[in-house]
Structures are given as C-alpha cells and as structure tokens.
C-alpha cells in the first residue's frame, strides 16, 4: 500500500489518539510486577477493629473519594441476646470520624465491621457491565476502566454488598481498587497501612509465604453473604452471624 506524505501526516495524529484510547484503562506501569503471580484479597480481623475510622480517612485521602461516598467504611453492630437477627447498625459518615461512645451492654455486644469491595472472583458486577468496563484482573483485583464506563449503574445494582457508587463528578462507577496503584508497586493499601491495630491485612493468595495461608488454616474465617456465591476474597475473622 502506498501512503503519501500528506496521508501519513493525517494518519499519525489519528493513530496517536487511537493508541491513547487503547491505553486509557491500563494501570500505571510498575516495574517487575507480573499480574499472573498474584491473587489479591484482604483479611479483616473483627476482633482487632476499634472503629477509629483511620482506614476510611486514609482511603479518602489516597483515592480522592468524594464526600458522601465510600470505597471503604466501618459499621458498628449492637446485637442483644433477644434480637440476634435484628442488630442495630450505625455508620455515621462511614465511620470516618469514629463512633459515639457507648456504655457497656450487659445483655448484648458491640463490635465493628470494616467493609470494602470484596474483590469477588465470580463478581456479579463485572457480569452485568454492558461494555466490560469493569473486570476481574488476572491478579484478582476487580477494576473499572473509567475511560470506558458508560455510567449506567447496572454494576451498582448488581453488587450485593453496596460497595459501588457513581462518582458525582466523573459520572462513572467507582469503588475500592485495593489501592491498585500501590499494590502493584509492592506497597500495601492505604487502609491497611493506616490501621493502628492491624485489623486489615492485604493478602496475596498466590504467595505461599503470605501469612494469610496459616491464618486461614487456624482461624474461623468467613466471607460476607456466602449464599451469594460471589467468590468473595475479603475474609473476615470472628464474623458474627448477624452481620450483613
């Protein structure tokens, strides 16, 4: 095929625009990071969470999460002996500023439950996306190509855990990415790094040396809403049956 100089000059910018579009959803390059070597998840130890809200603040600062929306939040449960199926739950402003203090309840218990995207292996949100803008990456992180998302909110409806929202300025779906820009560089997530008690631990299930394996073997660990069969990879230690 003969391409004249004039045609070449016209085609070059078009090719550049097309290439930019191809790269639009590609995560920032991280040297030595091989997706297929990882399978990311998280361990949340409920018995260690003190409801300080550090994780929520760290997440919002790290990821520019808009006010009133949450990539992670903390809930406080109050379950009394007579209403095991109807816990009292609060999460004022996502637990960002902690929780009001409460007196001890001799007939019940209080505990905190941090929530975030469960990075499901069989995620209902990626199943319904009409253009495949949200997907499970080969390393197990559920990501959104925001340069491609239509903002139809079908994924928001499909998430059983309420982890997704439509970003009010970008008008696209948004949620926890497990701080993908950090973990691909060998760092941990902002929430894990800022948790003062170690209640949240990033876990790489493909890494045989990751302490998650020992923990899963020796503790009573569950996932949220197992009946949804989503292949959730956020594992909760000491999860009370009343937690939804």
């Amino acid at each position, binding site marked *: 095929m003969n391409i004249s100089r004039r045609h070449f000059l016209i085609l070059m910018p078009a090719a550049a625009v097309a290439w930019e579009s191809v790269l639009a959803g590609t995560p920032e390059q991280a040297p030595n990071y091989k997706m297929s070597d990882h399978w990311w998840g998280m361990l949340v130890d409920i018995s260690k969470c003190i409801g300080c809200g550090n994780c929520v603040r760290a997440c919002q600062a790290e990821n520019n999460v808009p006010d*009133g*929306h*949450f990539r992670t*939040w903390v*809930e406080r449960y109050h379950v009394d002996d007579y209403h095991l199926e*109807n*816990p*009292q*739950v*609060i*999460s004022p*402003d*996502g637990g960002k500023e902690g929780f009001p203090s409460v007196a001890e309840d001799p007939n019940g218990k209080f505990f905190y439950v941090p*929530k975030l995207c469960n990075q499901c292996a069989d995620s*209902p949100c990626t*199943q*319904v*996306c*009409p*253009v*495949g803008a949200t997907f499970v990456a080969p390393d197990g992180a559920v990501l959104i190509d925001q340069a*491609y*998302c*239509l*903002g*139809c*909110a*079908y994924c*928001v*409806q*499909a*998430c*059983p*855990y*309420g*982890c*997704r*929202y*439509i970003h009010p300025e*970008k*008008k*696209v779906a948004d949620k926890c990415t497990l701080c993908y820009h950090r973990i691909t560089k060998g760092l941990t997530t902002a929430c894990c790094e800022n948790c003062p008690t170690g209640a949240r631990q990033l876990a790489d299930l493909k890494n045989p040396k990751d302490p998650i394996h020992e923990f899963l073997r020796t503790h009573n660990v569950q996932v949220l809403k197992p009946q*949804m069969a989503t292949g959730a990879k956020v594992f909760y230690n000491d999860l009370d049956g009343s937690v*939804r």
Partner: protein
Amino acid sequence: MNGVEGYMYPNEISLFWSILIVLYPYITGLVAGAFILASLERVFRVEAVKPTYRLALLTALAFLIVAPLPLVLHLGHPERAPEMYFTPHSTSAMAMFGYVYLWYLMAVLVLEIWLDYRAEIVALSQTSKGILRLIYKVMTLGSNNVSPRSLHIDEKVGWIVTLVGIPSAFLLHGYVGFIFGSIKANPWWSSPLIPVVFIFSAMVSGVAGVMLLYMAIMKLRKQKIDMQCVDTIAMYMFYIFIIDFSLEMLDLVHRIYEADESFRSLDFMVHTKLYFSQIVLQIFIGTLVPLFLLFLTQVVKFKEIVRKRIYVLCGSLILISVFAMRWNVVIGGQLFSKSFLGYTTYKVALISKEGLLVSIGLMVLPLIILAVLLKLLPPWPEKRPQAAAAD
C-alpha cells in the same frame, strides 16, 4: 439522616436508577403490546380488530423510536452509548439491548410497516408535490413495482415478518424483565417470574394504549367508533389482564409464603413506602377496579355509550396501573437496603436531567411522532390512494 430509616449501606442512600429507568420498561412495554394487538389481525386473523391494525403498528414504531432515549439520557456518559454496539460484553443482559432493539426496529416493525404501506407509498410518490413527493420517493426505496404479483409477495413476506415479530416482541420485553429479574443481589427483583410478568403487563398496557388512541382519534376525526372492534379489544385486554394479575399474585403469594430473609424488609416497604403506589394504585385502583368493570362488560349487555365510557376508564386505569407496576419494581427495588436493615426515600426532581419535566416530555414525544406518522402514512381506509400504474 434525612429520608433514611434504619441502616442503609452508605453508598445506597441515593438511588442510582431514577424515573427515567421507570419509563424505559413502560415505553418498551407499550411497543410490545401494540405490536401484539396488530398481530391479532395479521397472524391470528381476528378480523374485528382490523381498524386498529395500522394504528397499532405506527404506535409501536412511534414509541420504539423514543424507547432508548430514557436509557441514554440516564447514562453518566451518553456519548459512550455506541460502545454497547461496538464492544458488547457477552455476559451482560443490558449489552443485548442494542441488538434486540435494532432487530425489532429494523427487521420487524419498519419492514412490516413498509411492506404494508408500499403500494400507497408508491402512489403517494406519484401524486404528491414538493418536499412530500421527495420524502415518499425516498420511502419507496426504489421499489415501484405494484403489480398484483408483487403485492401478493408483499403480503406473504409481511405475514412472515409478523410471525417472526411475535416472539421478537416477547424477546424485547421479556429481556427488559430479565435485566431486573437476573439481579441476585436484589430480592425484590430476583425472580424468574419477572420477565413473564413484564411480558403480560406489556401486552395489556399496549393493547389499552392503542384502544384509547383509536377511540380518541375517531372522536377527533368525528368518525364513528367501530364498536365491534373495541369490544373485541376489550375482551382480549380482559383475558390478558387476568393472566397478568394471576402471575403477579403468584409472585406475591410465593414471596409471602416462602418468607425468606428479605421478607420482613420487603413487607415493611410494601406497607409503608410503596403502600400507595402498589396496594392502592397498582393493585386496587389499577387492577381490581378495571378487572371488575371489564368482567361486567363480558356478562352484562350495556348500551354502547356505557361500554365506551367503561373502556376509556379501564384503559386509562390500566395504563396507570402498569406505570405504577414499573415504578414499584424499579424504584421500590432501590428503597430498601441490601442489608435488610433500613430504607431510603426517592423524590423526583422537577427540573433536572432525570426529572419530572423530562419524563413528561419523553411520554409526549411518541405522541408527536405518532401524529407525524399518521399524517405521512394515513392508516384510514378512506384515505388510501390508488397506485397510478404498475411498472
């Protein structure tokens, strides 16, 4: 928190699907129902409804043209909507919308209307003047042969298109129901009955819509309403409505009897936030009242004027009922928390991209399109021009 009772996950407080998403299944339902009415005459040879055949087709087309608008307007990035065609995600029910829509628009409705009107379009392209002549010339698509053999072929192909159109109409609307029914995260939606209920409610709303349009247009044109026609339509409407109501009640009774983990939450919602729109509007005023009245028309010989009034009242109530049903599904499904511990509130804005005024505009727009179509392609037998000559 304002408008919230109990505990909602913090991202659930505002609704992400608004009144526009209520309109989407409502409008596609009217399309599917209108087409089914047209097919009564064409495929099932119910000659009594012939006066509404062409009107039903044009109504279906007018509403189908508008059907994707609420969806596109609702998108955060409407300019990316064509991506659904270019890079559809094979596991997404929504991704199929574009294809089902195009199939229904081009392969069924437009083709059937064109085949049915072709001889008249050819005649009008010869007798009209000015811009109209050009429009009709384009509409002939260069096919000017109106010989008896050619018209016979049109008739045969048109019959096949209608035959294919019936399952296509079911597909179009059943698929809309599947979008909701397949969401396992939401117990209010997640049910295999939803697509079936959507199909039958679509049929009843479309039939009611065309019947009302026919009666209104006849009144405007100062022509006599063909009572045999509207009696037959009302009879079909009654039977379809019974099936629709039975299916909806089956769904309701099943939920109540099974009483799974979501039941207490949903039951509370039906008795509070959805009480008016579901119990009062959809079930009582919109379903039981018209069912009773239509039943009366089947067993009692009313005078013509009484029957007309009953049909107008029932048709209007059915349209309200089906709209309320869509509202209860779409909005109701977002008013409770997926934690089953709380409820939120939805208020329709008056002036916004997804507000009340836009919604009203979207419901008026198909009527304007229909008026243009009726002008361009008059469905009335006395206005049929004769082709000048066969090529």
